[in-house]
């Protein structure tokens, strides 16, 4: 594919895949952080 060319079919697949992959990383990371910090708060109070 030429760099200047825009193909709507390809780029919609690429962006949707990218977003889903980022969500798959973000959600568990946020959950781990939340659970670990909950413990810390309990300990300090």
């Amino acid at each position: 594919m030429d760099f200047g060319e825009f193909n709507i079919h390809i780029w919609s697949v690429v962006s949707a895949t990218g977003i889903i992959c980022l969500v798959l990383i973000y959600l568990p990371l946020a959950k781990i952080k939340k659970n670990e910090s909950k413990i810390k708060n309990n300990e300090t109070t």
Partner: protein
Amino acid sequence: MFQTLKNFYHKLGSFPWFYKISGKVIPFAGVLSISLIVISSIWGLFFSPTDAVQGDVYRIIYFHVPAVSVSQVIYYSMSIAAAVFLIWRMKMAGVYIKSLAPIGAAFTFIGLMSGAIWGQPTWGTWWVWDARLTSTLVLFLFYLAIIGMQSTFASRKSADTAVSIITLVGVVNLPIVKKSVDWWNTLHQPASISITGESSISSEMLLPLLLSILGIYLFVFFTGLLSMRAEISTREQNKDWFKKVSNYN
């Protein structure tokens, strides 16, 4: 040899051990898988040759094939975990199924969506009810059922048991997905990559495809560990070992 395997199996069942080891492995798996995906995507999108029949739109293959392939492998692995859970009552197997099901569903969805977007310009339709597409949709529905069932039980143990049974019921669908294009007349084409014989895709296009498949498999390994960690951190919140680990971090 058998003894070391057995030891490993017992360690695998231990939440503190898993939490410690996965914490060390995750950064490497993450960096490696994401860079592989980026490299193979750029290679596939810009540097591999244009297809003679389909033109540039064929490049969707670099996302479609890895996604559907990994979604089937995830389901196979989940059904092994389901058998392990039912036979040995290994809690880690329950954690595995619960954590991997959303990832499998996500990749089945990517497969269906990219297939539809590819089918529109090449076939002339987004969707047909042929055996391959329908059985893949059934796979997606099994994933949704597994995810949905998690929250309908009072105790963790009964949820894990019921989910394991549903997972085993759905495993029969997988050979159908795989073989549908050979058994019946379908609009979907037969497999292009062959392990035993010669692939019907030219090697310049095949190489980035294999790389992207490897990248996605590693990515699932990475996010799988990550969400298993998240699930363990939820289930073991009130255990002493978890409090110790959290305060140490």
